[in-house]
């Protein structure tokens, strides 16, 4: 397993929480300390002022993930908004490592938020499917990764992206040309020592892994996509992602000015908690740690009722007396991700926290919300054909991408 960023402090390693693109684990009591993470990574917290600014600029209520602090950290988001106010557009860049066919709700979070950003700011989006990365890290065959990439693309498309403003590409298909030229430019600026320091590579890691980071870096530069942004070398990039991807973009931001490009801006999210509690992020290998987009209403009901970690007390009397522990209660956490109505969520939290609402009732509401979400996703997914995937992945101009 890859080691943590703080390789210099070997002794502290064991007690530190580990957050990098390939491993996320908390220390001690099991909860990720996000304040410490922000501190260590050096990004900013998103505050209410920033959220209000987004509201003003987009003339629509900010996305539920912003309101509830799911997307909670950023780098240079203010600069993006400044430019936007001046009439300068930007483009969005996000991605997925297609290591499995089964997507869970945690996987959808960045895509749901990116779709909101696309709609609110009316900007184009590139989505990178890092099939090469998974081929290298998960030791899957090239063909299998390409297949998974296309399957995942269907779920991504089902999130509701606009085909006239979205370009999805797989590394195996797209790397080359202008994209590769940028990869080399970036690679030249990052020493072996540096990349080992950032990602924790060792001498036993194969050279594929060590030379991968530029692949994920260069979609941040508009001239990697000549068919989309030719003539717009100045276009800024905003990257919505989960905070464990930060190392890639710290590296990118370090390199960008050296090769004459804008630094990409980032907007980062927390980890979606596993059903069993806040011990890290959901794992695709444990089916009961997550709600999958292929789960039936019955599965969802069963999983929430059986596995969702509850902050309720052991007995009804104790519960009515002390109220629920909202800090660790998973159903409340999930509702704060997916229950759109602020007033209703507030009410549930109050009643549950005071012990007047029981765990079963909260879980019931959650099951409703999730079932509707998964249902809608499944329906949209069913309408995605292979031809539609081809259309999204075709190297084609997007003339209306800023409309």
């Amino acid at each position: 397993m890859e080691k943590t960023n703080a390789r210099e402090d070997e002794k502290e390693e064991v007690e530190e929480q580990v957050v990098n693109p390939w491993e996320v684990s908390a220390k001690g009591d099991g909860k990720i300390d996000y304040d410490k993470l922000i501190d260590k990574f050096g990004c900013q917290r998103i505050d209410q002022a920033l959220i209000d600014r987004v509201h003003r600029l987009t003339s629509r209520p900010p996305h539920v993930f912003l309101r509830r602090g799911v997307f909670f950290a950023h780098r240079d988001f203010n600069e993006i908004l400044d430019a936007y106010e001046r009439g300068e557009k930007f483009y969005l860049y996000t991605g997925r490592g297609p290591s499995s066919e089964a997507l869970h709700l945690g996987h959808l979070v960045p895509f749901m938020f990116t779709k909101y950003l696309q709609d609110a700011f009316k900007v184009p989006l590139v989505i990178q499917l890092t099939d090469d990365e998974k081929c290298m890290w998960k030791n899957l065959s090239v063909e299998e990764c390409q297949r998974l990439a296309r399957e995942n693309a269907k779920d991504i498309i089902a999130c509701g992206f606009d085909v006239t403003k979205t370009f999805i590409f797989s590394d195996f298909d797209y790397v080359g040309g202008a994209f590769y030229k940028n990869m080399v430019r970036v690679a030249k600026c990052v020493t072996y020592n540096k990349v080992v320091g950032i990602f924790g590579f060792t001498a036993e890691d194969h050279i594929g892994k060590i030379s991968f980071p530029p692949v994920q870096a260069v979609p941040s530069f508009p001239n990697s996509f000549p068919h989309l942004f030719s003539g717009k070398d100045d276009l800024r990039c905003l990257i919505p992602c989960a905070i464990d991807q930060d190392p890639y973009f710290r590296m990118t931001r370090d390199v960008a000015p050296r090769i004459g490009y804008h630094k990409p801006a980032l907007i980062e999210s927390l980890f979606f908690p596993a059903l069993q509690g806040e011990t890290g992020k959901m794992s695709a290998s444990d089916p009961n740690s997550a709600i999958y987009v292929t789960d039936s209403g019955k599965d969802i009901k069963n999983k929430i009722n059986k596995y969702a970690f509850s902050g309720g007390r052991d007995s009804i009397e104790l519960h009515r007396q002390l109220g629920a522990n909202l800090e660790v209660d998973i159903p409340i956490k999930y509702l704060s991700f997916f229950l759109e109505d602020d007033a209703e969520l507030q009410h549930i939290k109050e009643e549950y926290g005071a012990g007047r609402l029981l765990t079963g009732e909260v879980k019931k509401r959650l099951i409703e919300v999730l079932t509707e979400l998964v249902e809608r996703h499944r329906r949209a997914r069913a309408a995605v054909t292979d031809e539609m995937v081809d259309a999204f992945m075709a190297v084609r101009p997007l003339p209306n991408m800023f409309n």
Partner: protein
Amino acid sequence: MGYSKDQLLTRLQELHIDFAQYEHPVVLTVEAQAKHVGHLGGALSKNLFLKDKKNRFYIVSALPNTKLDLKAVLSQRLGLGKGGLRMAPEEALQEILQVPLGCVTPFALVNESARHVSLLLDQGFKAQECCFFHPLANDMSISLNVRDLDKFLKSIGKDSSYVDLEANPSVGKDQPPDLATLVPSGSTVLPDPPERAASLQGPTENYVSDNQPTAVTAKSVKQSNNTQNVKDKTATVPHQTSSFDNPEQFVEEILDKTSSLVLTEITEETIKQHGEQLGAVISDKIRKRLFTELKSLATTFKNTAYTEGFCAGTYQPKRA
């Protein structure tokens, strides 16, 4: 009113379909039928009329010796879970197939009322010289080669789906139910059985229930796999119109969802509560509740249209 035996026989003649007809006393079972026509060579058929929990109907027509496991095998293969398939009630026989008891037959699909019924034919029929079916009445059996049955089905706009009914492939997360494409896309609502009133999910056309997740996904995967192998758009799989490429259906669905929401919201209570303001309140509610869902529908509609244009306009070389 349903087709009569004579009307059916005339139809078959018009289509130049070769068949032999045998009259006999009314029979209600294969055994009884066998007493009269079993010696004539050719295979008899056992025909079951089934329904699933979502009020979708199926005719399974098989050789008498073919083992059928409705609950554990067929139900799963159709993506209905275990025990999702059961015998249809007598009323359904009359309402939908419009044939008497003991007379289930593929020919019943000629009736408009059976338009949404899915037909599963035993693969074994294909090897037979001729097979016996009831021509909408129990006092006669007709024998014909299944190729001619196919011809008839085609003439009424139905596809023949031959299935190895005894096969028991495993169904799981990575192996979608292999018969999922045979689940009807529209469900038939009988007057009596309980249907979820004013469901906010809108019409049952293209409705995917909670219990059949893999069915629809498998459906679309199966369909698109077919169209990908046959590069031209006149694919082997019949195109199913959906709300996503058919403006009329699209609008119908939107109006259905909206009116269903309006109707749920207008109750004695709400009228009392809001009085004259009810209109504004409901209008607000519609906006809030349906916006996301309708937007999702519209986006898929847009993406589908773009894709069709894209396919028409480009040629994508096979991926290396």
